[in-house]
C-alpha cells in the first residue's frame, strides 16, 4: 500500500472510517433539508426568477434595454460571458490536470469544483445567446446543412470558434463530472430507504455494482477524459481571448491574450471554488475533508496565476509604449487615466496586489482572509474583462465616435440574475448530489487520513 511521508499534512482529519466518509457525504442527502439551506435557496431562487424575467424582457423588447450604443457594442454581456467561462476553468483544472499530476488533495474539492464548472459554463453560454439581436436564429452559428441556399458559417470568425470551444468544453466537462458521480450515486442508491429516491439514484448510477471490472473501467475512462479535458483548459479561454486578439481594435489586438486569459481564468476559477467551498464545508460540516491544507494549496495556485496575470498587465503597458503606435499607446494611457480609469485601478488592486497577500503564511492559511480575498479576486477579474472590453472600444481609432457606456438596470439585473441561477443550481447540487467524491476519498484514507498517519508513525 502507498505510504505517504509523515511530514506531509494529512488530507483527511479526524479518526474517520470508510463508513464515516459515507455517512458524512450521504447523510445530508438522506436527512431533512437544513433551515439555512432553505433560506439560501429561497433567496437565490428569487434572484434567479428576477434574472429570468429580465432576460425575457430583453428578448421581448430588444438589445436596446441594455446600455450599449453605437460605439460600445459589447459591455456587461461579454464581460459576464468571459467571467463565467473563466470561473469554470478551475473545475476542469482540478479534476483533469491535477488528476494527471496525481494530486490527491484534489479529491476533496473536485466534485464541487466540477459542478461549479458545469453551472458556470451554463451561465456563460447564456450571454452569447441573449446578446444576439435575433436569438431566434441563433442556430445559424452551427454549421448545419440547410436549405437557405448554400449558406455556411464563416470559419474565419472567432465567434464561431467560440461556439465550438464552449460546446466542446461543456460536453466534456459534463461527461467527466457524471462519470465521476456514478460510483457515488451507487453508494447513495444502496443507502436509500425510500423507494422513489432509491429508484432515481438507481437510474443515475447506471447499474454500478462496484465490481473490480467496473472500477478498472472507471479509472480508465477518468484518465482518458482527463486527457481530453486537459487541453480544453487551455484551448477554451485561448479561443475566448481570440474574440479580442484577432480584432483590429487597440487594446484588443494583443498576442499576449491567450496565456493571459487562461491564467486569469484559473485565477478567478480558484477564487470562486474558495468562495463556494468555504461556505459549503461550514454548512455541511465537511471541515475534516476540506481543511486549511486544501485552502492553502488553492491559495498557492492563486498566487501563481495572479502573478502571471499581473505580469501580463505590465507587459501590455510596456508593449503599448514600446510599440510606438499612436493608437495602441493612447488605448493604454486612456485605460489608466481616462474616464474609466477607476475600473482599471479596481482591477489592478484586486488582481495584482490582493493575491500577493497570500505570500504571508498567516493569510494564506486564514479561512476568513481567504474568503474575503476570493471575493475580491472575482470582483477584480470581472473588472479585468470590463476594462478590456469597454475602455478599448469606447475610445478607439476615430475620436468622432468616442463614446461612453452607462449600464442600465437590465445590464445589472441580468448579471445578478445569473448569479441567482448559478447559486440555485449549486445549492440544488449540494442538497441532492454527493458533494465529495466519496469513493475516491476512500482510496486515500489509509495513506492520508490523520488517524492512520498517526498509526503509521507509532509503528
Amino acid at each position: 500500500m502507498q505510504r505517504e511521508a509523515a511530514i506531509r499534512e494529512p488530507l483527511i482529519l479526524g479518526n474517520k472510517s470508510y463508513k464515516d466518509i459515507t455517512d458524512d457525504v450521504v447523510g445530508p442527502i438522506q436527512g431533512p433539508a437544513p433551515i439555512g439551506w432553505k433560506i439560501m435557496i429561497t433567496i437565490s431562487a428569487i434572484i434567479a426568477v428576477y434574472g429570468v424575467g429580465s432576460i425575457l424582457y430583453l428578448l421581448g423588447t430588444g438589445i436596446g434595454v441594455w446600455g450599449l450604443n453605437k460605439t460600445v457594442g459589447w459591455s456587461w454581456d461579454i464581460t459576464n460571458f468571459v467571467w463565467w467561462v473563466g470561473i469554470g476553468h478551475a473545475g476542469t483544472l482540478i479534476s483533469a490536470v491535477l488528476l494527471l499530476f496525481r494530486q490527491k488533495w484534489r479529491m476533496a474539492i473536485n466534485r464541487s469544483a466540477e459542478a461549479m464548472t458545469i453551472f458556470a459554463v451554463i451561465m456563460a453560454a447564456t450571454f452569447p445567446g441573449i446578446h444576439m439581436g435575433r436569438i431566434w436564429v441563433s442556430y445559424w452559428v452551427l454549421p448545419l446543412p440547410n436549405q437557405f441556399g448554400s449558406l455556411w458559417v464563416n470559419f474565419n470568425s472567432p465567434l464561431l470558434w467560440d461556439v465550438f470551444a464552449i460546446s466542446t468544453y461543456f460536453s466534456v466537462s459534463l461527461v467527466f463530472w457524471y462519470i465521476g458521480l456514478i460510483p457515488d450515486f451507487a453508494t447513495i442508491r444502496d443507502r436509500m430507504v425510500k423507494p422513489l429516491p432509491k429508484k432515481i439514484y438507481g437510474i443515475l448510477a447506471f447499474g454500478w455494482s462496484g465490481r473490480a471490472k467496473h472500477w478498472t473501467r472507471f479509472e480508465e475512462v477518468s484518465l482518458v477524459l482527463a486527457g481530453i479535458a486537459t487541453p480544453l483548459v487551455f484551448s477554451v479561454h485561448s479561443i475566448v481571448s481570440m474574440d479580442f486578439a484577432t480584432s483590429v481594435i487597440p487594446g484588443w489586438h494583443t498576442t499576449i491574450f491567450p496565456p493571459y486569459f487562461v491564467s486569469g481564468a484559473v485565477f478567478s476559477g480558484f477564487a470562486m471554488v474558495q468562495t463556494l467551498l468555504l461556505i459549503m464545508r461550514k454548512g455541511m460540516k465537511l471541515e475534516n475533508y476540506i481543511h486549511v491544507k486544501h485552502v492553502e494549496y488553492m491559495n498557492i495556485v492563486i498566487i501563481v496565476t495572479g502573478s502571471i496575470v499581473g505580469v501580463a498587465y505590465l507587459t501590455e503597458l510596456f508593449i503599448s509604449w514600446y510599440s510606438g503606435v499612436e493608437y495602441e499607446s493612447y488605448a493604454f494611457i486612456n485605460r489608466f487615466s481616462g474616464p474609466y480609469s477607476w475600473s482599471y485601478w479596481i482591477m489592478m488592486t484586486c488582481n495584482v496586489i490582493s493575491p500577493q497577500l497570500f505570500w504571508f503564511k498567516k493569510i494564506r492559511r486564514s479561512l476568513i482572509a481567504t474568503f474575503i480575498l476570493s471575493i475580491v479576486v472575482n470582483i477584480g477579474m470581472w473588472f479585468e474583462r470590463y476594462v478590456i472590453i469597454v475602455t478599448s472600444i469606447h475610445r478607439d481609432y476615430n475620436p468622432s465616435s468616442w463614446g461612453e457606456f452607462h449600464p442600465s438596470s437590465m445590464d445589472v439585473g441580468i448579471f445578478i440574475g445569473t448569479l441567482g441561477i448559478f447559486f440555485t443550481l449549486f445549492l440544488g447540487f449540494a442538497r441532492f448530489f454527493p458533494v465529495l467524491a466519496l469513493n475516491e476519498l476512500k482510496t486515500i484514507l489509509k495513506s492520508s487520513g490523520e488517524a492512520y498517519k498517526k498509526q503509521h508513525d507509532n509503528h
Partner: protein
Amino acid sequence: MSQNKRYWSGLDELHGTEEFKAIQGQEFPGVQSVDEFLSDDRLESTHTGRRDFLKFMGFSLTAATLAACETPVIKSIPYTNKPEEVTPGVANYYASTFYNGQDYGQVLVKTREGRPIFIKSNALTGEGKVGVRVNASVMGLYDSARLNGPRKGGQPTDWATIDADVQAALAAGGRKVVLTHSVASPSLNRAISLFCAATGAEHVQYDAISYSGMRKANVADYGRDMVPTFALDRAEAIVTIGADFLGTWGDVAVQTTAWSKGRQPENGKMSSLHAFESVMTLTGSNADRRNMIKPSEAGRVALALLNGLTGGGNNGDLSESAAAGIAPAVAALKAAGSKGLVVAGSNDPNVQLIVNACNRALGAYGTTVDLENAWVLGRGNDEAFAALVADMAAGKVGTLLIHGVNPAYTSTAFATALGKVKASISTSLFADETASRCTHIAPDHHWLESWGDAQRTTKRVDWVQPTISPLFDSRAAGSSFLTWANNPETDWYTFLRQTWNPNYTADQLYTDAAWNSSLHDGFMALESEGLPVSFEGAGSGLAAAKQAVMATKGGAFELAFYQKNTIGQGDQTANPMLQETPDPLTKITWDNYVTMAKSDMDAMGLNTYIGQEKPASVVRVTVGGQSVEMPAMLLPGQKPGTIGIALGYGRGANGEEVGKAAFQMAENGDFLRDANSALVPVGTNAFPLLGSASGLPQYEQLNVAVEATGATYALASTQIHSTDMGRDSIVKETTFGAYFAERKAAKGSASWNKLIRIGVHEDVNGDGVINAQDSKPTAAFDLWHEHPVEEVGHRWGMTIDLTTCTGCSACVTACHIENNVPVVGKDEVRRHRDMHWMRIDRFFASDYSLERGEEEGVGAIGSYRRMEDPAENPQTVHMPMMCQHCNHAPCETVCPVAATTHSNEGLNQMTYNRCIGTRYCANNCPYKVRRFNWFNYPGYKKFMNFNPSQDNLTRMVLNPDVTVRSRGVMEKCSMCVQRIQEGKLNAKKAGTKVPDGAVVTACAEACPTNAIQFGDLNDKQSHVAAVSENNRAYHALEEIGVQPNIFYMTKVRNTESTEA
C-alpha cells in the same frame, strides 16, 4: 336511322341491378339530407362512437385553431388601366421648384408608383444644388398633422362656407389686408393684385427673417429697394461679417455651389474667406480665417475694413480678436481688388451702408456684386407689417388673409392683435400658431401637390408642378384668392398658363410644345434687362452711418441670434428627419440652446461637456423684461462675452398642431407634458427676444443678462468628442502655399500627403542591410487571399474632398431619406444610438499637441487631456464619414454567419436576413460606421410619434427599393446598392457599359459643392478614378491596412498655417 348505340355509366346500369335502381333518381346517392336525418325517429337511440367523437373533436380543434390564425390582409389596389407614365418599380422624375419664404431650390422630385419620395437638385439649371432643408422637405407632404380640409372656428367646414364667409367679411368694413411672405410666384402676385383691385385690399409682405437693412441701404445708395446677388465663383477674397451665406443667409443653394467653384486648389488659385462673427456658423467654420467679434462690433468691423481699403480713418473700439483680423482681411481684399467682396448679415442699414461703401471701394459692383440681376426675394416690409399690427390691435382691420407666413410664431404682438381682427383667413396647411388663431383656415396644397411658378431672379421663371394628387381637401391658395376676388377665371392652372401666355385656352393643354419642354426642364428663361442702377447718390448716408456704428455699445453680455443649418427659420420644425440631423457645429439634435464660450461657462460653473448622463446646465437669459431658461452649450469660437440662440425652435408652444415631431417625447414614447399637462415643444422660441432698431428687427441684443439657474437639461449629441486628438491620418490638411509648392508631386510623395509605409524585416530597398529604411506600403500586406477587385468588373468607389465639404449635411438627409434610415428620437440619440449611415464628423482644432506637451513638460497623459479641448477659436474640419467599403474589411472576417461580405464589385455588403446581431462587426470597425437596430423602430412604442414607419401617412415616404430593417440586425451605408443595381440594369437593357455618372449615390447627388463623387474606380475614364489618382487623395486611417474604396482629398486651407 335511329340511334341504337347505348352508353352506360357502369356495369350496374347495363345489367340494371337492384342497387342501381334504388339510387338511380338521387342526385347525391348515399347522402342523407339534414331534414331527413333530423326527422329520423331513431335518432334518439343512436350514439356517436368514441373514435368518431375524437375525429370530430380533432377536426373542430384544428379548424378553430386555423381560423384563429389571421392572415394579414394587405389592401392593395391594382391599376385597372395602367397609367401610361407609371411603371411599377420604375421611378419618374418631375422638375419642380421649392420655395417656403426662406429657401429656394429648383428640384427634381422622384416619384414611385405616384408617390413623391425623394427630392434632388435639377441639374439642368446649372445653378446651385439644394441643401438639407429642401431635400428633407418631402417628409412634410406626408405629415399627418396636415389639415384634411377647410376649418371655420376650428371646426371642419366646406369650401362654400369659407367662400361665403370671406365674401361677407370683405363686404363688411375695416382694412382689408393680404399678408404673405415675399411672394416668389408671378402668378400668385397677379392673383393677389387682382384680388386687391377687386376688393380694395392691400398686400403686405413679411418674412420671418428680414433683409430690410440691406434693402434700405441699397435704396439710400442706389435708389433701388432690392437685395443683390453675389457671384461668389468670381470672388477671390470674401469677407463676411456675420452673414452665414453657406448656411442660412440669402440664396444658400446658389451661393454654396458658386463659392465651391472658387475653392478648387487644382485650379492653381483659391478664393480666400475671412469671417467676422460671434457664433460660429457654417460659413465661419469654413473660413480660412475666422475672427470673433461681438455683435455690437459688426459696424465697426465694416468701418475698419472700409478705412483699410480707403486709407485710414477712425475705426472706433474694436476688441482684440476683431482688430487682429482686419489687416489680413484688408490685405486679401486689396489683392483681390474688384474680385473682392464684403457681405454682412446685419439688419442695420448703417452697417450695410458701410459694407456697400467697401464694395464700391473695391469696385466689386459688376463683378462679384450683381445689382442688376437682383434676388427678388427677401422683400418683407417690416414697417408695413408693424403698421398692420398696430391697426389690428386698434381693431381697424376687418379682413386679414394670411398666406405662406406664420407671424403669430415670430411676433408676439401679432399673435395678440390677431384676436381683434373680425375675419382672419389663413391658407396654412397646418393649424399652426397663426392659423389656429384665425377665424377660418382655407388650406393650400402642399407644393408637391400644386401647380405654380416662381422667380428667384428676374432672368428666369421656374415651374412648380404637382407630383401627386392633393392628399386632402385643400385648394390652391391662388385659386382661393381668385374665387374671393370673383375673378371669372378661378382655375389655378389655367390662370397660371395665362400669366405666361395671355392667349392660352384649355385646348392648348397638351399641345404647347414650348410649354411642355420648359416644364420638363423646370424653367423658362426670360428676356429681362436688369434695371439700371444709379451710383449718383451712393455714399450720401455714409457719414451718419459711421457715427451710428461708432456709437453702438454693448453690455456685459451680447446676444446674437442665428439659424441652424438644419431647422432654419423654423417652418419645418416638425420634420423628424431634420430634427435628427445634427447641427453641423455643435452636433446636437432635437434642441436649441444658448451657445457660450468656455471661459464664460467656466466662470459661471456651467457644464461644458455633454455626455449621455452629463446634461447641460440651464441658464436664464434676460433680455429687457423677458427671460428664457435654456440649456447652455459650449461652442468653440464663440466670442467671450457673447451668447447665441438659434431661431426656429419652440414651435407649437400652445399645443398648436404643427406636427407630432415638434414636441418632446417622454422616454416611453408618449408626449412629454409639463405641470399643466400641456405639450412641451422642442426647443425654445427665440423670436420674441429679437431686438429692434428703427422699426427693423435686429438679430442681436446688445445688453443681456446671463445667469446660472442650477438646473440641468439633457441634450442629445451625435458626437461628444470635439477634437481629432492629433490623429493626422484621419484628417490631412495643408495650406494652399504648401499645396501649391508641391502641386505636381506624385501621389503619396507630397509632404502634406505622404503614403504611409510600414517597416518590414526584409531588405526591400536592396541596400544589403535590413533597417528602418526598409518598408512597404500598407497595400502590400495581406492576411487573406486578395479580393479580385482591381481591374475586374466594377469597383465602386467614392472620393470626398475635404476642401470643399462645408458640412452642410445635405448628404445626411439625402442618404437617410433614400435609405429609410430610422429616426430614433432625442432619448436614443442621447444614448449614442443614432442610426445615421452618413454622418459628418466635425473636428475642432486643439491648440495643444504632444509636441507642445513635450516642450512644456506636461507628459503624454497631460497632453492628451489638454488635446481633448478645442482651441478658443478653432479651425474646423467637416469630414463626411460612412462605411469605407474596405477591401480588407475587419467587419467581414469576424461575422460568425457571414452576414457581411465583400461583393466582387468592391462593396462591403450587409445581408440583413442573415444577420444574427452579435455586433462584433461594429466593434471591429475602425471608423465606427455600423449601426445596430436596438429596437423594433417601425413598431416599438417609444418611436411611435416620430418614426416615419409608424405613421400611416408618413410611411408613404419610404423608399420601396430599400427594406425597412428589423430589430436586432446591423445596418450601414450600402453605397446605395439599389441605385447601382438600377444603373446596371439600365445599362444591360441598353446593351452598353455603365456610363460614368449613370449611377450616383444619394449623398454624392445631394452634395451642393460636389465634394462627394461616386463612380467606378475600375473604369479608368471615370471622373472618380481620375480624382482617386490625384495627389491629394488618401485613405483615412491608412496604416491599419483595411484598404477602403473611399478616398478623402487632403483639405487645403487658404491660410498661412494649419495651426488651431
